[in-house]
């Protein structure tokens, strides 16, 4: 069980349910910075959370938070590995597994630990990186065939033989607004060569590395185009996954990011918009130094806005008004306390950001196994109770 493991129920009817169309209208209205019937809510759930939630709420083993809470949107991931190939198992015991993936990274997954470890990389020199040639970004297997892929397979869970992306999209469509997604260059480099090598080589050979970034940027732009074509008429929006910051600032200088990374995000966003798809950008860390750039790229909403990195949705709303939407920012560390009074304060304060639309309620990253099932239940109830428009928050009202 992992974050991207939700498959839809068997499709029994053509078209979409009226409730799904209502959720889509709710989401799109919010993204247009208008007030829908209520604040949209969804999240990304760790497999460990889902198991805990099932046990604590006495739910069956196939219960799923997206369905149970009738959440407002869901994201899907195609095969984004540079090389389309099955995982090569290097070690496997009941406790752990070590595999080489389609990124050429040697991944260690200990089943008790929430996140995997990247131990080594096939592409372990600058020369190999420059010489690497990926499989066709538009290869139909990325969208229409099942198989192993690192993004879906090795994360908070471990999963082999992921079903064909298009089938997942079709199975979820009757019940949810469904987004496609693509990683951007930073996420690829982390898996392809490791974050430390990526940073070191950017510092050592900024222009040569820039040429590599541009080549990989083009690859993922073409993959995004092919994905949108493969999912034509089936997708409701598009997520770009790209972590370029940590707690304090961007990993690389904003100038370097603007030169080499930003243009590819802009191209993907433009193409999505040309296809009628709103774009949600997911980037962890403190991105204040480059936030205006996302506004300039006309990103529809920014996710996840990590509180621990100093991001605050109300502060951002005051600074940027309704020039961009927000998705997330509810402090997972408060959720993990289970303290209902603190959680109520956290949730209701953040709902101020939803006034005038432009806000999707989510955690500030993902729902970890540190959050109890009862707590998440309480949070959804709070958002549903207080997220009706016009929003009235009583003691928690804040002027924006």
């Amino acid at each position, binding site marked *: 069980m992992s974050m991207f493991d939700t498959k839809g129920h068997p499709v029994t009817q053509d078209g979409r349910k009226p409730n799904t169309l209502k959720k889509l209208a709710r989401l799109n209205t919010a993204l247009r910075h208008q007030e829908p019937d209520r604040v949209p809510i969804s999240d990304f759930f760790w497999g460990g959370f889902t198991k805990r939630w099932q046990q604590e709420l006495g739910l069956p083993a196939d219960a799923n938070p997206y369905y149970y809470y009738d959440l407002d949107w869901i994201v899907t991931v195609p095969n984004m590995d540079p090389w389309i190939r099955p995982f090569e198992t290097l070690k496997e015991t009941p406790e752990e597994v070590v595999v080489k993936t389609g990124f050429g990274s040697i991944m260690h997954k200990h089943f008790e*630990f929430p*996140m995997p470890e990247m131990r080594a990389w096939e592409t372990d020199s600058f020369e190999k990186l420059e010489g690497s040639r990926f499989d066709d970004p538009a290869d139909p297997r990325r969208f229409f065939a099942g198989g192993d892929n690192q993004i879906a397979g090795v994360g908070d869970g471990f999963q082999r033989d992921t079903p064909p992306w298009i089938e997942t999209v079709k199975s979820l469509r009757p019940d949810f607004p469904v987004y496609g997604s693509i990683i951007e260059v930073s996420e690829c480099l982390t898996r392809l060569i490791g*974050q*430390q090598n990526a940073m*070191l080589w950017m*510092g050592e050979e*900024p222009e040569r590395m820039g040429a590599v970034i541009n080549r990989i940027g083009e690859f993922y732009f073409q993959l995004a185009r092919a994905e949108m074509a493969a999912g034509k008429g089936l997708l409701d929006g598009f997520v770009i996954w790209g972590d370029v910051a940590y707690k304090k600032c961007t990993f*690389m200088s904003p100038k370097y990011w603007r030169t080499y990374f930003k243009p590819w995000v802009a191209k993907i966003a433009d193409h999505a918009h040309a296809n009628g798809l709103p774009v949600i950008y997911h980037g962890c860390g403190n991105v204040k130094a480059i936030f205006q750039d996302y506004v300039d790229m006309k990103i529809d909403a920014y996710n996840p806005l990590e509180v621990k990195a100093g991001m605050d949705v109300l502060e951002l709303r005051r600074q940027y008004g309704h020039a961009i939407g927000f998705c997330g920012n509810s402090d997972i560390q408060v959720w993990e306390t289970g303290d209902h009074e603190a959680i109520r304060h956290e949730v209701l304060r953040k709902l101020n950001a939803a006034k005038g639309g432009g806000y999707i309620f989510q955690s500030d990253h993902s729902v*970890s196994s540190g959050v109890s099932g009862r707590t998440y239940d309480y949070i959804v109830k709070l958002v549903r109770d207080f997220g009706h428009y016009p929003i009235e928050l009583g003691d928690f009202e804040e002027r924006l």
Partner: protein
Amino acid sequence: MQDLKLLHEAVLTGDAKSAKAITEKALAEGVEPLKLVQDYMMPAMSEVGRRFECNEYFVPELLLAARAMKGALELIRPLLTASGAKPTARVALGTVKGDLHDIGKNLVAAMLEGGGYEVIDLGVNVTPEQFVAAVKEKGANIVAMSALLTTTMPAMKTTMEALQSAGVRHQVKVLIGGAPITQKYADDIGADGFSESAAGAVAIAKKVMA
């Protein structure tokens, strides 16, 4: 005699090749190894830390400087050991049990080495027992713990308890850091220091050892 300010410049700009060449030449000319470290390399890394704090330097520049420092230190360290010179302190550093992230820890290691500390890098997924062993068997004066995930933070508290149970808590200072860590959490678990960033770790280490 060559201009040793060039060593400072080489570390500051992350020019590993020059840093090594200048160090080799200086040692051959009879310059005191400790002088190279204290008068040129450590001030250079201190300036790297300052620039990182001010967002003049970013992670790539920090990594390059750390690599240049490390390359030069490899030439000097055997000479310092032979002369009986002691490091500022010995730090047992690791990412706590259940957490497999390492870039933050590696940046802290680089900055501490640049600050004259001997770093025993215990790696990732380090158990409380491994931290205790590093204190007992390797004589660490500082235990430095890193965690990226909110779900692995509690392992810091467990390690504090293990140090206490093993009767070595009074022998060491404990520093913690990582994305979800705050000063409040450090206070709550009884750690001696907390740093928001890799560069700040050196200042905190210095403060707790004073």
